[in-house]
């Protein structure tokens, strides 16, 4: 379906502003209030409040029976969440950095994601797996990855990736209420943390009441006519910055689509936009090959290769581990400079 524009409007209206982290916590908090089966567990989610402030204040509010620090045993506590979900609870388990998935992925993709299917639909696993993703602050090869394509490649789990405070709250509420396992991947750079602020948009208007953002619908973050930028998470902000600047300068008018989720992938929103612009740039902080960027290209050309008036350009991490040194990392991440170059190239501007 066509990407919805309503949220863009919403966030431009006046109102109470929250950082993405606080919006996410508010979503969790309201659901915990409403539903006693919701609980949160993970490393440093209690007194610390989450390394990236994903749980700040929850322990104080809900106590240690519902906001639970775990040992560094991801397989054990994610498995615990699965078992609790099977018995009717709605756990939220946090994998501190997505980069650690290799120690516990069996529980995630062989159990959490498959039980519903293997049971022929008889057993549901309504849980949320939250995890921090992304780089840009020199945390090097083992703490800077996005890896969303790896999760999205495995059937059976939804994968959401908020980029704004509004979506962070709404997608969290939808994820908790969903009867399926939902992986909720928050980029550290969108959280609006004072010590890692990557965009002013990470502090924005958020309605106080609970609301859902439907999982599987992309958001039209900026309307434009010359080229479609398909992106997600922190890169939405880089793409918007570049698009706004190039638009103001009269260079080109880019449409920016914030995917919001990889599974389900809103293929219709991509197709509708590219059908109008005829040009496509994908901005993806995950590794380039065998991932999201190729899937988006194929989504278009599987429909009709002639929709693309020029080859699509993929601005992604060029199949290299994330380097530590600042200049090297900047060179491999899909930042503004690379986005601008791609937009100019694909439009010939």
């Amino acid at each position: 379906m066509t990407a919805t524009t309503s949220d863009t409007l919403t966030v431009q209206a006046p109102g109470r502003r929250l950082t993405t982290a606080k919006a996410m916590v508010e979503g969790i908090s309201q659901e915990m209030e409403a539903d006693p089966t919701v609980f949160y567990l993970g490393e440093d989610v209690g007194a610390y409040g989450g390394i990236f402030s994903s749980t700040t204040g929850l322990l104080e509010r809900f106590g240690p029976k519902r906001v639970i620090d775990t040992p560094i045993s991801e397989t054990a506590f994610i498995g615990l969440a699965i078992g609790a979900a099977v018995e009717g609870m709605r756990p939220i388990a946090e994998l501190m950095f997505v980069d650690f998935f290799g120690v516990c992925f069996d529980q995630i993709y062989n159990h959490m994601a498959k039980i519903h299917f293997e049971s022929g639909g008889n057993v549901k696993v309504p849980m949320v797996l939250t995890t921090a993703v992304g780089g840009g602050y020199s945390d090097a090869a083992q703490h800077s990855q996005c890896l969303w394509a790896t999760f999205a490649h495995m059937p059976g789990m939804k994968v959401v990736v908020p980029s704004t405070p509004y979506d962070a709250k709404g997608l969290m509420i939808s994820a908790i209420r969903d009867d399926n396992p939902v992986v909720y991947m928050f980029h550290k750079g969108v959280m609006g943390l004072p010590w890692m602020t990557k965009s002013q948009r990470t502090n924005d208007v958020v309605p106080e009441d609970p609301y859902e953002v439907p999982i599987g619908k992309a958001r039209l973050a900026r309307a434009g006519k010359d080229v479609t930028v398909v992106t997600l998470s922190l890169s939405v902000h880089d793409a918007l910055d570049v698009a706004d600047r190039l638009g103001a300068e009269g260079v080109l008018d880019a449409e920016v689509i914030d995917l919001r989720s990889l599974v389900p992938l809103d293929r219709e929103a991509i197709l509708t936009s590219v059908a109008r612009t005829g040009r496509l740039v994908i901005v993806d902080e995950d590794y380039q090959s065998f991932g999201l960027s190729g899937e988006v290209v194929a989504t278009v050309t599987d429909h009709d290769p002639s929709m693309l008036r020029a080859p699509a350009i993929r601005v992604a991490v060029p199949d290299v581990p994330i380097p530590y040194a600042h200049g090297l990392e900047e060179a491999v991440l899909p930042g503004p400079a690379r986005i601008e170059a791609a937009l100019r190239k694909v439009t010939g501007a």
Partner: protein
Amino acid sequence: MTVTAPGTASRLDAAVRRDLYSQMVLIRTFEEALLRDYHADKKPVWDIAAGLIPGEMHLSAGQEPVAAGVCAHLSTADAITATHRPHHLAIAHGMDLGALAAEIFGRETGLGRGRGGHMHLFDPATHFSCSGIIAEGYPPALGQAFAFTRQGSDRIAVAVTGEGAANQGAFHEAINLAALWKLPVVFVVEDNDWGISVPRSASTSVPSNATRAAAYGIPGERIEDNAVEAVYAAAGRAVARARAGEGPSLIEVHTLRLWGHFEGDAQGYRTDLDGVPDRDPLPTYELTLREAGLLDDERVAAIRAEAAAKVEAAIDFAKSSPVPDPASATSYVFA
């Protein structure tokens, strides 16, 4: 850590003892029927993909004492997480035999509508599940136990693996967490001496996994000789402890893999094959009960006949059930 020899098992009620025996007979009867049907249509050349039951088949014959002894203390409200070798536990825990058989035959009436197969049995009615990934059945049991506690009940979860699995990381993580949070879990290790072709001596640095309980500050007990009554007694203690909110226990049972690791396994590596028939727990326990005057030919025949009737009814149900419609192959990925 305690080592319980068979002789020390407390005197049990006659009815309990006969029930243990009947349960073991039912399990064996089911496994023998599967053995027959698994191989029936894979001749002359054995092709794993062929036949009414294709794929890997891990039968549990020889390990009945573990299932019978442990499950005697459970109701279907309690949870079990089992392994790739799950049938004995599923049966002893009271799973519907027809739904079990139908799943194994890949039918729409199966527990998982034929999607799961014999390593992936999920039964909400008996809170039973299993996993084909070694030791990875332990962690979800913690969550079931956690939920039961939060629900204010005294229901518990039993988590089972083989001795080979006890060297997998999930084993360690799960027991530590359960011990730390005093979750009502009973951890069971089925030591059948082999992890496929690898003997215990080539996988495990200590003679008994019960020793490992000390690494978590919980009770550990090892039962020798596949002794069903000793299993019953140890499980009784562990289950009571869990229900009382005192936390988890670990029980290792020295049991027996009567047949191959999976069907088709020629067991050329197996150095202990000679002694296997004598260690079959079924005739052994039958003899014990006969000597105790609790079984005679007539009772044995009746128990066997009842088991055969149940099993054949289940298998008939399975065989006469429809296979899933290929057009529905992509269903049930999401709720």
